[in-house]
């Protein structure tokens, strides 16, 4: 039985894990870098150990130091959170060798999930549909042409060594494919010295829909419903919700069965997420498994009533799942907004620095997981997620209006945030109607609408601002003026 957990993470997710451990009477060990002396996870854990410099490589990614701390603190388990070492199968393997209970999948399963090509073929074997395309690398342009004609254009040519938009090309016909094949090959060779190309169907107007899955060490598996995470910027999720507006119960069950199959196919244990693209024609295509707890797990907690961190710990303890698929009932609607420290108008560039003042929203069915407190600092060394703001409602509309209220109440001084963007999005008819796609921001010109909204808000607040400025000026003048000077302001403000 797990009695003391080292949390190899920081920020809101470390706090989230501490919260459940406390409720379960499990001791917690926090680790922290030079940058995090004053962070809340240090303050709330049972114990806290300094592990190195601010740069992640020197602290939160330092496997040796973390293993050493687990052993010296007497922790019997490790929770990796998300990011950092959470999907590092080498590290998971080292934990296994040291008999440390790694709260997550086995290193073998993690490695399989991490290798997209291997994972894809495991899925094909298990009859879980993946994005149509070459089953593996294509040997030459002729093979690519055959496949493209099989699955029909448009298709994507992707170098498996690419990433971030490089080594990838959209082609619409044979001619473009021939040209693209050469370009992608040479781009890849010039970048990493080698090339290996796959062909994939290009899906338009897609939605990102994922399933929470849970599988115990005895091979029992369930899905805990879907989450729609289509609203993204630069392929990173901004707003998530459950249920998805286009998933009905029949679809939920049907895709859910595939998810259970997928978890068996990679011998997955503990909690993970199966991600799908949903094409405009209604087809679902598996893309990958996230072998960890997701940022957006709270919305699943809202509609399932489950504590997913508790479930992770129970599974890690070898306990069988305490429910069957039919016991899980979806209750209500939940939305998450990822409150990032970033400048929407400056290509979402990170915005960091001291946060002298914060007001954290609260209220019925509002949940805010955050590391913020008045006087804290948003560090440039770590990711920009400051808070996960989640709301629940008996209806979608109730969760949406609660979210809008909570966004209005959320005040973070000192850094730019994504809060104004979310207010604009949540107020669009497209969002209200559930017309979600992964290109939502561009498709509906959201940034321009945000500018309009901000201008409107400024106009609304203008008289208030002028009033505040008048009072300030008079107050200031009253301090500057000689006391002997008998100006009129004195009669006004004293």
């Amino acid at each position, binding site marked *: 039985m797990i009695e003391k957990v080292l949390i190899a993470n920081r920020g809101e997710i470390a706090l989230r894990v501490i919260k459940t451990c406390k409720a379960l009477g499990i001791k917690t060990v926090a680790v922290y870098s030079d940058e995090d002396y004053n962070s809340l996870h240090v303050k709330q854990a049972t114990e806290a150990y300094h592990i190195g410099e601010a740069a992640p490589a020197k602290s939160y990614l330092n496997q040796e130091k973390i293993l050493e701390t687990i052993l010296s603190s007497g922790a019997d388990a490790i929770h990796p959170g998300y990011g950092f070492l959470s999907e590092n199968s080498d590290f998971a393997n080292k934990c296994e060798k040291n008999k440390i209970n790694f709260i997550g999948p086995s290193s073998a399963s993690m490695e399989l999930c991490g290798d997209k090509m291997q994972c894809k073929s495991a899925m094909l074997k298990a009859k879980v549909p993946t994005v149509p395309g070459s089953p593996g690398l294509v040997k030459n342009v002729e093979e690519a042409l055959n496949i493209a004609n099989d699955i029909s254009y448009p298709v994507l040519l992707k170098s498996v060594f690419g990433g971030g938009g490089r080594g990838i090309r959209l082609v619409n016909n044979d001619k473009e494919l021939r040209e693209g094949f050469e370009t992608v090959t040479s781009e890849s060779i010039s970048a990493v010295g080698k090339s290996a190309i796959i062909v994939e169907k290009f899906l338009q107007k897609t939605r990102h829909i994922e399933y929470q899955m849970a599988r115990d060490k005895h091979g029992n598996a369930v899905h805990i419903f879907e989450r729609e995470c289509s609203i993204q910027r630069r392929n990173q999720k901004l707003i998530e919700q459950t249920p998805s507006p286009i998933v009905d119960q029949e679809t939920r069950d049907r895709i859910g069965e595939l998810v259970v199959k997928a978890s068996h196919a990679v011998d997955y244990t503990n909690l993970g997420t199966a991600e799908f693209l949903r094409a405009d024609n209604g087809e679902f295509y598996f893309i990958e498994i996230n072998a960890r707890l997701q940022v957006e797990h709270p919305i699943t907690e809202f509609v399932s009533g489950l504590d997913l961190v508790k479930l992770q710990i129970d599974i890690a303890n070898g306990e069988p799942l305490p429910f069957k698929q039919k016991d899980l009932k979806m209750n209500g609607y939940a939305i998450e907004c990822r409150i990032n420290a970033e400048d929407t108008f400056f290509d979402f560039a990170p915005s960091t620095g001291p946060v002298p003042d914060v007001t954290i929203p609260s209220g019925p069915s509002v949940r805010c997981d955050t590391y913020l407190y008045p006087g804290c600092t948003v560090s440039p060394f770590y990711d920009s997620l400051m808070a996960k703001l989640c709301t629940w409602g008996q209806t979608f509309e109730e969760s949406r209006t609660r979210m809008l209220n909570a966004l209005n109440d959320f005040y973070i001084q000192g850094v730019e945030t994504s809060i104004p963007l979310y207010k604009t999005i949540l107020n669009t008819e497209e969002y209200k109607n559930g017309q979600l796609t992964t290109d939502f921001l561009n498709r509906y010109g959201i940034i321009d609408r945000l500018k309009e909204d901000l201008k409107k808000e400024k*106009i609304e*607040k*203008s008289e208030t*601002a002028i009033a505040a400025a*008048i009072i300030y000026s008079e107050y200031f*003048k009253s*301090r500057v003026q000689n006391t002997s000077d008998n100006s009129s302001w004195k009669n*006004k403000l004293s």
Partner: protein
Amino acid sequence: MDYKIKDIEKTFDGAISENLGNNEYVIKINDMEHQIKILKMDSRGIEFILDQKYHRAKYLENSINEMNLIIDNLPLTLNMHTRLDEIVFKNSGSKGSSDTQITLKSQIPGKVVSIAVQEGDSVKQGDLVCTLESMKMQVAVKAHKTGFIKSIKIKIGGTVAKNDIVAEIE
């Protein structure tokens, strides 16, 4: 005084028109009267009820002609013509002091942000001598008379109290 809010076109004319006592005032903005009650106020911000509606404003770094505010949760930049520097100037020794007085004194307490002159420089009355920051406002201290800078009694980053000597001008 005239105000302009960045990003919106309209300009505003505003002033206090009546003190009702008990921290309540009537202010006039573009000829419309509003009632304002101040609940709390210091150099960092103000909480007030304007026409029955509560608001809070935070004052961020300001200069004489630009004010950065957060109204409720919304950041705003205002441009304005306060003539505050004139008031400071008027009180900095230019008034009531004979031309023979050499000391230029600070009329506000503040931090020295910049110094515009060196010892030995010649200055004309009204020339900028230094800039002080006080209550998040930047305020110019100007020469009270024409002459040359005999000595500078302040340094950048230092603080001055009200009536401290800033420089001697002969």
